[in-house]
Each structure stands twice: as structure tokens, then as C-alpha cells.
């Protein structure tokens, strides 16, 4: 009697409402077995919140996006989707028959410029090209 219940539960999982229409080829991999689907989040990195405004002149903060949820190949918890995608693309090249092609590839990156004081009160303007994730392959 217990077994039929389990089978029913699996079906139930597959029928989860798909909260993100644009899932990648991991469609079922993302949402199987009670796992939270990988979804895109917007995060505003506020230099004010970080208490940096005594040395950061501009900007006040910047918007970045990241994936959060259950990805099938999360290499460790310190990576956001950008690094995750880059690493998986490399592994796919090495083991194409085992590791599927990556879907979380950043599709749009933009530069960020930061103006801040260094320890000697010199003012520094730094431009980081291709640094802020604007969109990734998951979505």
C-alpha cells in the first residue's frame, strides 16, 4: 500500500506549476524530487547598506541578477550563475557525453564603473568590463 503512494508523489512533483516559463534544457532536472526550481533573482548591491559611502563616491550601488535554486551541477555554494556556467561549459567540453551543455551561460554582461577613495585619499576610477550579469541562459 505504501508503494503506490510514493509513485503518486513523484507524479505530483512533475506536475509542479512551472513558475519560470523560460527554464533551460534542464527543465525536469531543475524541478525533480521536491527541489526548488532554479529562478532568476534581482539583487541591488547597495554600497550604502555595506557602509561604504565614506569612501565610495559613485555609484550608490548597482543592480545584478543571479540564479538561486536547485541547479543540477552546482559546483559549490560560492558561485553565482556566471561562474557556474563557465565551469560547466569547460566540463562539457571534456566530457560531452556525461555533462550536458550548459544553459546558465550569461547572455548579457555590462561594465561597472566605480569611483572611490583609497587609503591615502587618492581618488580612483575603475572600470570593470563585462562584469555585471544582466541576463543568463537559465532565463
Amino acid at each position, binding site marked *: 500500500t505504501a508503494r503506490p503512494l510514493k509513485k503518486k508523489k513523484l507524479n505530483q512533483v512533475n506536475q509542479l506549476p512551472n513558475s519560470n516559463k523560460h527554464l533551460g534544457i534542464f527543465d525536469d532536472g531543475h524541478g525533480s524530487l521536491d527541489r526548488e526550481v532554479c529562478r532568476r533573482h534581482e*539583487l541591488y548591491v547597495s554600497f550604502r547598506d*555595506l557602509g*561604504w559611502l565614506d569612501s565610495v*563616491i559613485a555609484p550608490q550601488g548597482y543592480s545584478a541578477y543571479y540564479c538561486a535554486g536547485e541547479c543540477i551541477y552546482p559546483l559549490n555554494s560560492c558561485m553565482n550563475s556566471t561562474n557556474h556556467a563557465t565551469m560547466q561549459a569547460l566540463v562539457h567540453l571534456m566530457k560531452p557525453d556525461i555533462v550536458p551543455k550548459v544553459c546558465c551561460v550569461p547572455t548579457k554582461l555590462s561594465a561597472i564603473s566605480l569611483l*572611490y577613495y583609497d587609503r591615502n*585619499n*587618492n581618488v580612483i576610477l575603475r572600470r*570593470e568590463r563585462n562584469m555585471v550579469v544582466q541576463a543568463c541562459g537559465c532565463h
Partner: protein
Amino acid sequence: GSSHLPRSPHVFPQHRLGVREPRDMQREIREVLGLPGRPRSRAPLATAQQPASAPLFMLNLYHAMTDDSGNGPPQPHLHRADLIMSFVNIVEHDRTLGYQEPHWKEFHFDLTQIPAGEAVTAAEFRIYKEPSTHPPNTTLHISMFEVVQERSNRESDLFFLDLQTLRSGDEGWLVLDITAASDRWLLNHNKDLGLRLYVETEDGHSLDPGLAGLLGQTAPRSRQPFMVGFFKASQSPVRAPR
């Protein structure tokens, strides 16, 4: 339309990304984006002492760099640089009135903060000039040299950098090109950069830079002299000699 791909669940350890405190995630994103670590608190300078000329100039550069419309005033050197550093002078020597000629003004900059591996694409020394009436309405030649070697018993070794000609009544920011000194300062990272400024009249007489209207460290905060370096990350930080 997704196809079922064979999955090898044990290729990588299964970790949950999970949902974090925004501050943790901000720090994580900052580290991944390569933004500098949490800036250390700056050496306390009373606001009244803090030069404002360099920050104001750099803020204009920041707006020009982030302005995609392209409507702003053109900023030479900006488009090729990834890192722009401004330095305020730490020491200022004057050999002016009361000394025998030639009169000069000397500025020293601490450049130890320049990150390794950066190639200089351009460097400028900026000093504000007020209108001067002695002598009135005459042509002045402003020349800038790098102090290569200071000597206690005789004149220092100097290296010519730039010459600008203007009128004694002119006012505004004077920009002197000091890019030629960059090779040396990158090779001697720990040595201060010394810049010396001379003013001569049309008939070759040396003039006190202060009398010519050139402002030094005692100027109002928004008009104090500073230098700016434009850098680009490169494997060979030293420019090929021309």
C-alpha cells in the same frame, strides 16, 4: 520541448544554493565581480583639509565614462583606460622670492598605490592659474621637469616633460603632459615622483610661479594641484621607448 537527457547525478557534489541574507549575497556577488574588498577606512583627513580638486575632476570623468549618450564633452585618454588614479601632492617645495634665480616650485607624489601590472596610457599634472598682473599682459613659458635625482651639493638631475605658453592674464586649469615620466616611476615604484615647474617671461627672466598666478597646496580646496594617471591592465607595464 525539453528532452530528457541522461543525468549523471554523482558527477558533482549536490549543494543547495539556497536563499541567503542579502548582505551575504551582496558580498558574494562583489567578490565574484572582482570589486575591491571592503575599502579600508581612509586616513582621517579633516574635511577642511581634504583637497576637492581631484575628486571633482574624477567625478566628471566618472560621469563621462558612464554616460552612454556620448553628449558630454570629449575626455581625451578616457576611452582607452580601465583604471584612472588621481594623486594629491604630499610635499611642495618652493624656491621663489628671496632665492637667486631660477625660481621654481616642486611637487612630490607618493605613487606606491599603483597596482602592479598596469600600463600607463597617459598622465597629466593639473595646476590652477589665476590672472596675474606682474608683469601685466605678457607671454609666459611654463615648463615642467621630472626630478630624476636630487643632489645635496648641486643641482638635481632633471628630465624635460612639457612646455606650455600662455598669457599672464589667463585663468583656468593648466594641464601639463607628464606621460614621459611614467616609465621611470613604474620601474621605481617605491620612489616618490618629483615634478618641478619653472616660469619664464618672453625675455628669459625667471618668474616666481606664485607671482605668475600658479596656485599650490595653500589654494582653496577645489583648486589645489594634483596629478592623474590613466592605466590599462597589460603584461608589459613599461611603454616601448619611442
